[in-house]
């Protein structure tokens, strides 16, 4: 059985335990926690009585009032709900890039997903996991049980980056699967058509999901530091390659990369999606900390 320590270092766990994740929006939940819920249910915080209407649950009748007045009243409470957070982890071929600093992008993504899962579960939120490449590969529904974390981690450990990315259809099918509103944490390099991607993000948002987009970059993909002539092969399709002198296009590549990132950032902003660009040579916990600080505003 996979354990957290398979993915996270001890110091990472210690560091993460100090973090608190606060949901910015109220989402549905069924366990008490720190998330205020607009849903009225049975809980400790009484809100009001109201007359019974057909269809109300019998168990929510206030029998004491019925005994005194012979009328049916329903007791309503303010409910503190759990956050339903789904970590959507990109396991496409492009995530299998290991840069000149030796960091595998998918490895970084896995650690980041594990950290988030741990954090969320440590505050009693329900956490699920979906991995995908060109289609959805594994789906683990949201649970709050701490034993559920092991299932999540085990899935992450056994997942390896595979085929090409088709993020937009995956997100659209995700919108169909996630019946209840919640937090969707997208961990990906988003190497896909930005227009289609943003369109599918819009679909998710319409369903009421809050989305956090964490874009991973290897340092090589930012700085393009290659010197000699090189044959660039597509990790997702080895037939796609380019033979060129990297020095001759460095400047233009950097511009193209910045344009791509800016385009995504702008699109996410329009859909009110929190976006963070994360180079893989930065400590993932440090990057996460800065993101959470942003969320606490």
């Amino acid at each position, binding site marked *: 059985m996979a354990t957290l320590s398979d993915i996270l270092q001890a110091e990472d766990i210690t560091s993460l335990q100090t973090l608190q994740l606060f949901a910015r929006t109220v989402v549905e939940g069924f366990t008490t926690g720190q998330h205020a819920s607009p849903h009225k249910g049975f809980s400790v915080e009484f809100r009001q009585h109201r007359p019974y209407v057909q269809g109300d649950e019998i168990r929510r009748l206030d029998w004491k009032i019925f005994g005194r007045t012979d009328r049916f009243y329903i007791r309503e409470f303010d409910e503190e709900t759990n956050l339903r957070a789904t970590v959507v982890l990109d396991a496409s071929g*492009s995530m299998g890039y290991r840069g000149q600093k030796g960091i595998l992008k998918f490895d970084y993504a896995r650690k980041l997903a594990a950290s988030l899962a741990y954090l969320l579960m440590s505050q009693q939120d329900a956490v699920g996991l979906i991995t995908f490449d060109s289609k959805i590969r594994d789906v683990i529904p949201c649970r709050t049980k701490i034993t559920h974390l092991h299932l999540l981690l085990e899935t992450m450990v056994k997942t390896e980056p595979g085929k090409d990315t088709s993020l937009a259809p995956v997100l659209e099918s995700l919108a169909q699967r996630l019946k209840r509103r919640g937090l969707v944490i997208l961990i990906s390099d988003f190497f896909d058509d930005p227009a289609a991607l943003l369109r599918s993000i819009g679909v998710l948002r319409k369903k009421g999901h809050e989305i956090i987009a964490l874009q991973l970059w290897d340092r090589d*993909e930012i700085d393009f530091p290659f010197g*000699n002539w090189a044959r*660039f092969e597509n990790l997702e399709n080895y037939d796609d390659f*380019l033979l060129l002198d990297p020095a*001759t*296009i460095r400047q233009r*590549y950097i511009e193209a990369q910045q344009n791509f990132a800016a385009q995504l950032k702008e699109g996410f902003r329009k859909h009110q999606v929190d976006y963070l660009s994360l180079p893989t040579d930065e400590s993932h916990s440090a990057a996460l900390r800065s993101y959470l600080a942003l969320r606490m505003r």
Partner: protein
Amino acid sequence: MSFLHGILLFGAAAFLIPLIIHLLNKRKVVTVRWGAMHLLHEVIRQRKRKMKVEQLLLLIIRIAIPIVLALCLARPVLTALRSLGLGSSSLIVMLDDSFSMRAPAAQTTLPGGTVMQQARQDMQTMITDLPDGSSAQVVLSGGTPRKLLDQATTDRTLIPKQLSEVPSMSGPLSANDAFQAATSALKDSPNATREVVIVSDFQEADWKAIADGAALPALETISKQEPKPQITFYRVGSDLAENISIASADISALVAAESQPIGLRVRIKNHGKRPWQDIPVHLEADGARLRTARVSLAPEGEAVLSFTHAFDKVGDHALSVRLEGDSFADDNAFHSIVQVRNQLNVLLIDGSPGKEPLSGATDFLEIALTPHTVAAATLKDLIRTKKIDLRKIRNEDLRQQEVIIMADVEKLQGHTQNEIDKFVKEGGGLLVFAGPDCDLDWYNREFFRKGEGMYPAAIKGQARADSDSLPARILMQRFTHPSALYFNDARAGRLQDAEFRHWLELTPQGDQTQRIFNLDRNVPLMIEKKYGRGRVIASATTANAEWSNLPLQPFFVPLMQRLTTYLATVGSAPAWQLVGSTIRLPLEKAELGAEFTLRDPTGQTQTLKSAKEGDAVFVQSHSITQPGIFQLQKVGTEKTTLLAFNIDGTESDLKALSSADIQKIAKRYDAAFADTLPAYQALDRTRRHGSELWQPLLILLLGLLFVEVLLQQHIAKG
């Protein structure tokens, strides 16, 4: 194309280095498997074609750099310009030996040297640089062009030696005449490759008209010869801009009587831009200073000074004017010889004596030649006239005469004509005035004799200006005849005031004639002809007022006096000559074989021997090369003849053509131009060996390096 260091061409193989690096780079590619291919595709899609071109260009430049470097080091020589004959050539140097070449040189390797010395030194180098077997000839181009050597020489030491004796005292350079002389020298060139170098200071006075477009037919002929000679204009310049000189001096009389005052009018010119104050001008007679005047000159201005002096002894006297002040002193003096005589006998032959005063053909002449005698003045006339009626003439009347003047003479009787013929041939002067009584048939038939006779021109007939048309006048132009020089100055009288109603239409023939004055109807008024040792002057008009009002003009007196004294002195030495000309004095036949001593102004002497040419006996010198007074003395006698030599006044204006103007002339005739010896040598090397190309190649190399860096930066920026 050839190479001075051909072995270094192998260095061009270094072009393989960038090529190999390029190929190796392509082979040693690393494989990068990554995901951001869509970004690369985006970059490449826009620039794929451009990148290929840029990469290829960069490769070509990198390959070209070592090749160009190797070419540059190998010093290639473009031999397309090489002249046909690789070996020996014939060099004709046209050396301007005019007086202006004596000015201080501008850039001289000889401190204090003159332009001529610099030219000589440069020419020596030019001749030394000639390939073995080459010949050289020098045409001295100032004044009358002449060859320095009889034949072109291959001896390189001969020309410099001969040149050292060239004093550069000649008159103005006549470019066309000089090129004609060069053409003749070119014909004698022993080699097929021929070069003509014009070495001159390109004085503006000599070259301005050519720079302005005047043709040089002789140079055109040279430039059209096959194989075409290489023509080079080589300038040796002076930096002397300031110069004052005696531009001219006019003497009122060429021959004077004892104690008769002679006027000397001196024109002093400032050729520079600075003013001169109080320049002393000295009058010297027979070597003794008589008096000094002072004159101030504005920039490029001139001043005229007048002196008078009377000699009290019969004989030849030297009269000089000298000024002081400027650094270029050779043109600061003017010398002349004045003949002082007891009297000068003139016979007037009157063809139609008049009964009334001034109605005779010679009456006006008599007054003009002896004004003091006629006026019964105390002053003495030099000329003594004897008037005689044509019908009463006897042979004895011709004896003891120096000039005979015929006026309106119908014709001469055979014996009289023979006597006059003899008189002129022996050195006498004859002045013939026309008139209504003249038998024009006789004049043409017997007197002109188709150019063989004494009379200078055939007579076409009598012409007249109708009463309703304007009378003919003297055509005002610069007069060159010695007797007319005086009238070039307006102060001598208004010649154009004379009006002519009738005149003879004279048509001069032969090269022995010279026009003295012309009428504005394009016919001569007075013509001179050399006849034997004497001269004959024919006038197209009368000596009295019958055909014109000439005798009524104030200038009639000096005009007749000058004509008469000129005719009386033609056999003797001229008042002065230009430096560069020779002394040639006619002698009696008995003097054949006599020796003469010629003493120059510095006191050096040389012996001359009389010689015979045809019937004439004379004594002749080489070209005179310095200005001043010369003395010619017959050995064993006291008889001394004085001779004066002056430099040409036009040579004193040292202004030279600009380089641009000289280049303009050179370009017109497809000639080259150089103004320094290194420039000439470079030109010569190019012609002889071809043009070295390492300099343009070096510039190309630097350009390639620069472009390579720029291209690399451009590519890196994407």
